[in-house]
């Protein structure tokens, strides 16, 4: 059995750690809610944009350079991870999917894969694997602004139009509910409008807070108005598709952010639970040691008394 003092200091240390993890848990929970709220705020915009697109679609074919696909020779992969650790298996899950993608990619084609890394963990991963890193982003705050993700979307669009790559895939975490996130691989470019609509509906989590909004899903109304279009329906569609694609990237990052926080929250909850359990165990040990000490002393006293008499 360890000495009393040692056990005491261990109890103290464990309690301290428990306090820290508890605090981190609470912070992560608050941030997660906020990220979800921010993501939800982008819905009216997305709905309106899709509605405009459906109106325009009647006057001009919805076929822009961003929608039209071509033969895929070069692929750009966007890896979205967090900047900070201590989020359980959040980053390793993303990187595991990247691993398996890279493996299957290496089997089929040669090495014309480019990578954009978002988050410090993805950057260090790409450097370690010596991937062809086109660009890297980190420091997207906890509540990303559209102006922060725009440089990322612009790189993706520009490279696509200049034939730097023929498709853009993203690997990021999809926030299904507080306790459930899954890593998904999605295609962002060429743009698939149905998928964007799907993404917009997916902003709402399946369970928990905000899930009641699920019923108010987006449907396109038919309108028979005679609009004037300036400059032209075709130009407008091009602009709208670009905006929608930027919105999709923005939502993707927000969703990864909410997932990061919820993963951290769960990890920290486990840590605090463990700390609590451990401190209870140590307390028992401490009391036992104390009791043993007292018993020993009593025996010594009584044996000394009986020797004297």
């Amino acid at each position, binding site marked *: 059995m360890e000495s009393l003092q040692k056990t005491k200091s261990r109890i103290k240390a464990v309690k301290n750690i428990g306090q820290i993890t508890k605090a981190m848990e609470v912070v992560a929970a608050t941030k997660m809610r906020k990220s979800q709220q921010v993501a939800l*705020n982008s819905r009216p915009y997305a709905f309106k944009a899709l509605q405009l697109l459906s109106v325009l679609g009647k006057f001009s074919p919805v076929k822009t350079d961003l929608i039209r696909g071509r033969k895929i020779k070069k692929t750009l992969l966007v890896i979205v991870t967090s900047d900070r650790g201590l989020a359980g298996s959040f980053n390793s899950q993303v990187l595991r999917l990247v691993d398996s993608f890279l493996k299957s990619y290496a089997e089929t084609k040669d090495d014309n894969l480019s990578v954009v890394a978002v988050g410090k963990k993805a950057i260090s991963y790409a450097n370690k694997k010596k991937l062809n890193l086109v660009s890297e982003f980190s420091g997207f705050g906890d509540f990303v602004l559209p102006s922060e993700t725009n440089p990322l979307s612009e790189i993706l669009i520009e490279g696509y139009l200049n034939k730097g790559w023929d498709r853009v895939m993203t690997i990021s975490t999809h926030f299904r509910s507080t306790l459930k996130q899954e890593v998904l691989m999605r295609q962002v470019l060429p743009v698939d409008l149905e998928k964007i609509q799907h993404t917009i509906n997916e902003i709402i989590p399946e369970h928990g807070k905000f899930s009641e909004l699920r019923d108010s899903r987006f449907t396109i109304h038919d309108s028979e108005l005679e609009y*004037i279009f300036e*400059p032209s329906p075709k130009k407008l569609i091009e*602009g709208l598709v670009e905006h929608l694609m930027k919105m999709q990237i923005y939502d993707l990052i927000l969703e990864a952010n909410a997932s990061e926080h919820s993963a951290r929250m769960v990890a920290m909850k486990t840590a605090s639970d463990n700390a609590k359990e451990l401190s209870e165990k140590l307390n028992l040990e401490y009391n036992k040691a104390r009791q043993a000490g007292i018993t020993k002393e009593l025996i010594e006293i009584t044996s000394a008394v009986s020797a004297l008499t």
Partner: protein
Amino acid sequence: MKLSIITLQGIKFEGEISSLNLKTTSGEITVLDNHRPLITQLAKGEAVIIKEGGEKVNFDIKSGFLEIGENNQATVLAN
């Protein structure tokens, strides 16, 4: 007319206004009551909203769209 300004961060303005001045890619326009349906692309610039009481509100726009629909309703999608 009723105007809503919608951005990615939520609905920034909603209310009755008497006029709206905007820069579009094909020139500056002022929208008054009962404008006919229009969809146009906005250019970088400042939107000036004059509320029903005559109060002026300015709004920075980087890019976006303006839709004027039926029932005297205008929507600005802005970034």
